[in-house]
């Protein structure tokens, strides 16, 4: 009996201290209701860290004030883990009372977050690529938007380029994860539409030390070209192995590879590779009439001023674009309701859905109730690696 009492007492003590802590915490949350609060959850650790880190970095460049209202950003790391992403989402909603959430970096985590967003009626702007996040726009996806170009748009660029250059058959090697899977799904129809055959599909892991087996298998299928669907520096490994094994045809990469570390690690092995990318990657080479040129240059200048020369990447640009999108939508929402209210969140969602001619660092966006990406061909350029640098290819070539 005595012990029963002790256990009960202990449990009670724990409960009381937990609730006390809670009260303190909630006290600290009760700030002025005025600012617009944006929750940001990105994968700064875990397998997608190379995406999440520049994304988190870019938050510092976002507008601190929109239409006279301060905007606050609360940044959390989800470790590329779905459970963590959803927990962050719930934390944003219940503890931080955010008006919108930006994130996460990868598709699987975003997909789970979208569920929570819809349930609590909070708009989610994803930084992940897969079209599944926003298509089709149903009750759930009503609340989901994203800034990166659909893989489909990018895949079309590759297919067009291949067709224009007489490629008849293609071998594919991609990550054994959602990224590689997503690309495979998009490239198949794109190639089909151009009558190009997909002759071999291989997979590899981000941390693999060797892809010799896959490379040999691809080459055994004798494709005219090979495309690599990987993100960041790991995308260089297949290119290198293929070169080493004597593959002479063109190699295509995806926009996931578009950062300077890729060039550093890839070196001469990735020379000549072609890839679709956001215009921000080659901002300086864009024709002056490209709508994104100015914005992109400003982003690059600001980012490099803060994080060092050559540190910029398209992943950071996705975050920056998310900021631009919100910046465009917030004024309209502010007219309807005060931040921190369900009405404001609903209005914000409506405003995002109605965003017109928002200039990103990567193209121009026109959202519609059925299109929550809103991008067109202006969001994509074709780039080739020449002399260890990104070189803009003229359109249609």
């Amino acid at each position: 009996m005595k012990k029963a009492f002790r256990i009960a007492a202990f449990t009670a003590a724990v409960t009381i201290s937990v609730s006390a802590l809670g009260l303190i915490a909630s006290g600290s949350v009760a700030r002025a209701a005025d600012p617009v609060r944006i929750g940001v959850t990105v994968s700064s650790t875990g397998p997608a860290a190379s995406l999440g880190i520049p994304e988190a970095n870019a938050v510092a460049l976002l507008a601190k004030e929109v239409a006279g209202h301060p905007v606050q950003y609360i940044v959390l790391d989800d470790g590329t883990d779905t459970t963590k992403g959803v927990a962050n989402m719930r934390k944003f909603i219940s503890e931080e009372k955010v008006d919108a959430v930006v994130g996460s970096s990868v598709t699987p985590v975003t997909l789970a977050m979208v569920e929570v967003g819809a349930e609590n009626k909070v708009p989610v702007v994803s930084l992940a690529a897969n079209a599944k996040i926003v298509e089709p726009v149903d009750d759930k996806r009503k609340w989901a938007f994203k800034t990166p170009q659909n893989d489909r748009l990018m895949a079309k660029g590759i297919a067009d380029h291949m067709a224009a250059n007489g490629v008849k058959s293609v071998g594919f090697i991609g990550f054994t994860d959602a990224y590689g899977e997503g690309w495979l799904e998009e490239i198949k129809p794109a190639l089909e539409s151009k009558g190009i055959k997909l002759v071999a599909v291989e997979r590899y892991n981000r941390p693999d030390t060797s892809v010799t087996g896959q490379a040999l298998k691809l080459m055994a299928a004798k494709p005219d070209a090979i495309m690599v669907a990987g993100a960041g520096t790991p995308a260089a490994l297949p290119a290198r192995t293929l070169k080493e094994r004597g593959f002479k045809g063109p190699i295509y990469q995806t926009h996931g590879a578009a950062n300077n570390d890729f060039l550093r690690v890839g070196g001469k092995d990735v020379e000549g590779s072609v890839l679709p990318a956001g215009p921000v990657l080659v901002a300086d080479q864009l024709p002056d009439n490209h709508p994104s040129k100015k914005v992109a240059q400003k982003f690059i200048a600001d980012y490099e001023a803060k994080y060092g020369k050559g540190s910029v990447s398209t992943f950071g640009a996705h975050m920056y674009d998310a900021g631009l999108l919100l910046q465009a939508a917030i004024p309209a929402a502010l007219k309807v309701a005060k931040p921190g209210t369900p009405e404001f969140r609903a209005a914000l969602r409506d405003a995002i859905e109605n965003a017109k001619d928002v200039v990103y660092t990567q193209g121009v966006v026109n959202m519609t109730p059925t299109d929550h990406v809103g991008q067109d061909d202006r969001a994509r350029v074709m780039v080739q690696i020449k002399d260890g640098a990104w070189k803009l290819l003229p359109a249609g070539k």
Partner: protein
Amino acid sequence: MSTPAPINNAAADAISSDGRAPGGRGLRLVAPLAALAVCALIPLVPGLPQFWITLLNYIGLYALVAIGLVVLTGVGGMTSFGQAMFVGAGAYTTAILTTRYGVNPWLALPAALAVTGVFAWGVGAVTLRLSGHYLPLATIAWNISFFYIVGNLDIFAKFDGISGIPPIAVGGFALSDGPSLYYLIWGAVALAVIATLNLLDSRVGRAIRALRGGVVAAESFGVDTGRARILAFVYAALLAGLSGWLYAHLQRAVNPSPFGLNASIEYLLMAVVGGAGSVWGAILGAGLVTIIRDQLQDWLPWLIGARGNFEAIAFGVILVLLLQTARDGLWPHVLRLCNVRPATRGHHAEAGQLAPRARSAGEQRADGPVLAVADLRKQFGGLVAVNDLSFVVGRGEIVGLIGPNGAGKSTTFDLVTGVTPPTSGDIRYFGENATGERARVIARRGVARTFQHVRLAAGMSVIENVALGAHLRGHAGPVGAILRLDRAEEARIFAEAHRQLGRVGLADLADRPAVSLALGQQRIVEIARALCLDPSMLLLDEPAAGLRHREKKQLAALLRQLRGEGLSILLVEHDMDFVMGLTDRLVVMEFGSRLAEGTPEEIRNNPAVLEAYLGGVA
């Protein structure tokens, strides 16, 4: 030398710390009920941020898995890095059934558990034979494979996973917000705690707990240790599967990432940090790890002024420091803080008699030898340890097996008890062939034994060890144990254990941890355990070693009394005086062969024996 399994002691604490008291059920329920009441009130605390409820929900989910690990790792001694995979099995089953086939989540629950259970049974059947450090690695291999298989197959929607999982509904009310799920999740945790405590405090639970004390000892009392291992494995997996079912409906989306190796590592970590020896430790560990993680995320940026990826670093360091200050986990420390002592077991003196063990026809006959060994041979490589040995033990007879060190006595003992199979020869108990039979089969024939090197389960009290001897006289299975349908039988088993302890004169030590007894006393406990089998034959391996003169006399008296009750006894002994005064016949071994056989008087005067055994110094 090093680690006398401290976790086990913690296990003993926790298992009996459900407040079991002589009074019985009434009082025992008070503590959990009080805890339950407090838990139920948490969401109603005014001003409690909703996110705390969310955190508590996650803690509950993790705690379920960690509780499974208590049974598997803390008590059963099997380290698993595969629990996340079983969470995944539960989560994916319900995800697929509810999204593709529109099955109600409640109907998906049994399916999720069934799939997880069958999956775990399959994995266990292949893997659990592996012992020691192989098992953890094998589970790592399974878990990594699970991750890639799920991620690459269409039916699991590959790496993107399945979203749009419906919430669980109760009477039309969807449990989709934190507080409503809180009750569901913590209700499940409460059930898991009760079920686990019940399971561990039962006949089956004793078998699982005895695994760490030594497979051979458990097998020798009829425990199918392979089955006990798989049972613990499947039970742990079922709790993980339950957690997965809840997870899927809390998260509303599943994909492979939460079910990878890292998650499995984290579950194990929770159990160990909290104290893998007790269910409360598991819950504490789940809470601690989750809260530390969350708080680090809040406080670290503020502390070091830079946002970065320092959480993992800080977490790793905290983990190591925690282990260094509390290597058995934190729960034992909490207990010490609250000054809680393990409760003692009631004496159940009022319980009825345990039914005698069912005896075979051969056992019931009054004639013929009890044990007949013919031409028994055991070779280890080129070495012949037992060389065509023959002897018999008759009914109600005490036979001593003696010989100098290395004569093959212990090997002979291992052969007749089924610990090692003979190379050739014939062993018969009660006229029935038992050659090459395993230890637990021989136990079923009514043969009980003790060990030269005492094998008592370290985490159990004296009486629990003795009760293990009655394993074959009970029938309750795991389900009955969890539902507490085994109480009457348990009471009878413990009454019997108490009776046998009293018989050997150790009744007052019943509730002491078995390892705390002096070695000589532990030997006597082994005899009590053997008697609990209700044997027709006793095999004693050096029972008098470590006993003082008076104690030896008492032991001899007890053995004579047992002989008087019709038991047959075979004993291996060094102590010539003890043997000479007690046995009816002696078999003397040298170099694996029988050197002489006869009454003590004949042996004492046998020149060959004197030459061999006493080194020719007589």
